């Protein structure tokens, strides 16, 4: 049984209320940080913990914090990214809904470390009821002296505000989020300058994911070094994975990053295997933006090693044979699923969510969607597959923000690994309307070169 640091208490009755949360040991990290550590020492603990951003890119949090510019007389801001709109990802929702004080506690410690007196939670508009849960938690924390002026008599002031988004995926991109938070249209900004120098209202700002900030609580309570002992290599600590698709037990799981992908899918502790005796065909391991992998490359890397649920192992082989940890949205597909249809669904999502600022993403996402729809409905041509490849290649890397890449990667990976399924749709347009391509050879053992 793996260690749980975030969700350990999530099922204690009434943990949502301040009194229960406090009784279970809540807000200890605030006492420890504010009374015994300097802000720089908190950042130092985060560096030691090896914590990496849980929002998608996996950038080391301690390093990100140390980049924050600290000019005299200019306010600094902490903004928590709770926009969680990536298809397949629903871990932050779980955390905020069931144990909201954990986020508030992590935010107070982080705000202290970063010197932010006004910190914000930017929450996805559709999470309307969670906004109320958070606001209530903030109110309780304020009444008990954890927020407001002169917290614990240390002279540190901090307030937290919740701002709801209006239903745009792009507002999860950190600079679009800041624009939206300022009350403007959520267009990503052109970088540089980065938020660490010029963020919210032009002031130095750190944007972190909900889970990243919540992880501050165990890091301060146990110490960065202890936290770093969990996991493998540079994947330290625990990670929330939201598992969905063709599995027996979809849901949010906290894993310490020491288990294999196979164990995660098939063990009863986690996903509990695939229902109705069906076979694993493919998986998107880190939310819709990361490359899809066929079963054989999912369970083992191209080198023949067991693939683990860690940042490094999931990325092993680069985009040619690997994928990414991403935001931890783990989507499992069995042999009844059609990869072409899934790719179309994702393309439609990205077309709809593109902000439309830069031409490759604005025009390219719509084009890919239309071609994929043709292939899926039996009107595709063989040349369409190469055309799709060329379009995604011309979007990737040429856009303002990573949404362009995120739209390109799923298409690229689907063609890379499932090209014969696309071709089958083109050559058998009628049959493709009636049945799915099935498992094909996607789970066959890999031909691993003998070293």
């Amino acid at each position, binding site marked *: 049984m793996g260690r749980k640091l975030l969700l350990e208490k999530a099922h204690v009755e009434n943990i949502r209320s301040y009194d229960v949360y406090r009784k279970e040991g809540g807000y200890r990290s605030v006492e420890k940080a504010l009374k015994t550590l300097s802000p720089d020492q908190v950042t130092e603990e985060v560096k030691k913990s090896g914590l990496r951003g849980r929002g998608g890119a996996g950038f080391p949090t301690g390093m990100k914090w140390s980049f924050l510019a600290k000019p005299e007389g200019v306010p600094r801001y902490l903004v928590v990214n709770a926009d969680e709109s990536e298809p397949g990802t629903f871990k932050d929702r779980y955390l905020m809904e069931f144990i909201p004080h954990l986020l508030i506690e992590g935010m107070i410690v982080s705000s202290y470390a970063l010197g932010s007196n006004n910190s914000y939670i930017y929450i996805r508009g559709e999470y309307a009821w969670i906004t109320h849960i958070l606001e209530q938690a903030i109110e309780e924390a304020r009444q008990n002296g954890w927020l407001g002026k002169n917290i614990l008599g240390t002279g540190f002031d901090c307030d937290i505000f919740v701002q709801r988004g209006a239903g745009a995926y792009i507002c999860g991109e950190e600079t679009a989020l800041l624009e939206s938070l300022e009350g403007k249209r959520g267009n990503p900004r052109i970088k540089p300058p980065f938020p660490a120098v010029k963020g919210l209202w032009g002031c130095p700002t750190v944007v972190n994911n909900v889970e990243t900030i919540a992880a501050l609580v165990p890091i301060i309570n146990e110490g960065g070094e202890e936290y770093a002992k969990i996991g493998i290599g540079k994947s330290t600590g625990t990670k929330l994975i939201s598992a969905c698709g063709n599995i027996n037990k979809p849901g949010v799981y906290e894993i310490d990053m020491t288990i294999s992908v196979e164990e995660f899918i098939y063990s009863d502790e986690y996903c509990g295997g695939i229902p109705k005796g069906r076979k694993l065909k493919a998986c998107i391991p880190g939310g819709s933006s990361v490359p899809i992998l066929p079963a054989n490359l999912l369970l083992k890397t191209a080198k023949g090693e067991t693939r683990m649920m860690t940042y490094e192992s999931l990325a092993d082989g680069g985009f040619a044979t690997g994928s990414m940890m991403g935001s931890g949205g783990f989507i499992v597909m069995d042999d009844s699923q059609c990869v072409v249809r899934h790719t179309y669904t994702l393309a439609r999502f990205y077309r709809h969510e593109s902000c439309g600022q830069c*031409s490759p993403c*604005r*025009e390219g996402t*719509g084009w890919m969607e239309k071609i994929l729809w043709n292939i899926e409905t039996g009107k595709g041509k063989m040349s369409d597959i190469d055309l799709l490849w060329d379009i995604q290649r011309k979007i990737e*890397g040429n856009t*303002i923000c990573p949404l362009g890449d995120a739209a390109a990667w799923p298409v690229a990976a689907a063609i890379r690994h499932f090209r014969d399924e696309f071709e089958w749709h083109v050559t058998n347009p009628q049959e493709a309307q009636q049945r799915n391509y099935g498992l094909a050879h996607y789970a066959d053992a890999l031909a691993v070169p003998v070293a």
Partner: protein
Amino acid sequence: MADEIKKAPAAVKVTIDNITVEVPAGTTILNAARQIGGDVTPPAMCYYSKLEGSGGKCRTCLVEVAAGSAADPRPMPKLVASCRTTVMDGMVVKNITSDRVQDARAGVVEFLLLNHPLDCPVCDQAGECHLQDLGYEHGKEGTRYEFNRRTFEKEDIGPTIQLHMNRCILCYRCTYVADQLTDNRVHGVLDRGDHAQISTYISKAIDNNFSGNMIDVCPVGALTDKTFRFKNRVWFTKPVDAHRDCPDCCGKVTLWQRGDEVLRVTARKDEWGEVKSYDGKPGWICNTCRFEKKKASDWTIEGPTVINRHSVISQGHYLNKQQPKETIQEVMGGLKPRLLMDIHEVSEVNKLELSELPGAATSQQYKTNSNESSNKTV
């Protein structure tokens, strides 16, 4: 770190396509390339030096940075938007010498034309359109797009400007004009992605004395001057520089004339297609100068506008027009097809006082004319 920044030289050297220039620190790659000029300058469809915050969107100006700076000569992994990337001392940039850049730019041009109606034959911007120029230089002869193009209804934004959203490339320049030149911002972008559109909220008129500058900054024919629509092709007109004492603006304009008639008034443009600056200030013009001073006597004429000799405008054989010999009858064995429209006929537009027409000049006006004459002969 802080010391290094202090020591940063005021002038930096940057090499673009093997040509080295010295520019003030803080200059963008694009502006450094403009100092070199010629083919080395990347095309820019959204950047506009006089509009703060513009650029970075269209991606036509992407270049490869082969070496970041003398201090850190590592290449940049991605292509960068030259209009929004500042040069560093010792930076090495590749534009036309980079296959990657050419490939990406061809992609961008294809994307920009994907939903474009290509209605140049009926577009007022034809002949002075940056998208046309870009297409000629970097485009392919055919499109790989096999779907319906997205379409929008035409929209009047105020009495003098028409928005033809189908042609818009969403460069955002006009929204910066609305933001920075006019006092009341009512113009922006609605919706997102490929369904985003430039608009005023609920077709509100833009009522401001400087709103006409939107027409000048629009690189395509999406925003057009309603007092000039369909009155003439730009290459049939003669541009002359003129000025008047205007209480509101610099009063320095280009008149687009046909005979003595003033068909259109615009701000003066520099070689990059941007409004010229006077004493360091952009020479925006007011709507009174643009839309209401349509008589040559309103203006002091300075002389012909210098137009790049490669421009189709300078090809307009306005003087000493030679009517080409009609060859159709010869090659068709004496058959004389009925022409829908004889372009030479239409170019004899001096018969009509175009500037006196209340609206656009359409074939209707010419028809009534010829009908009248034919009626007379009957």
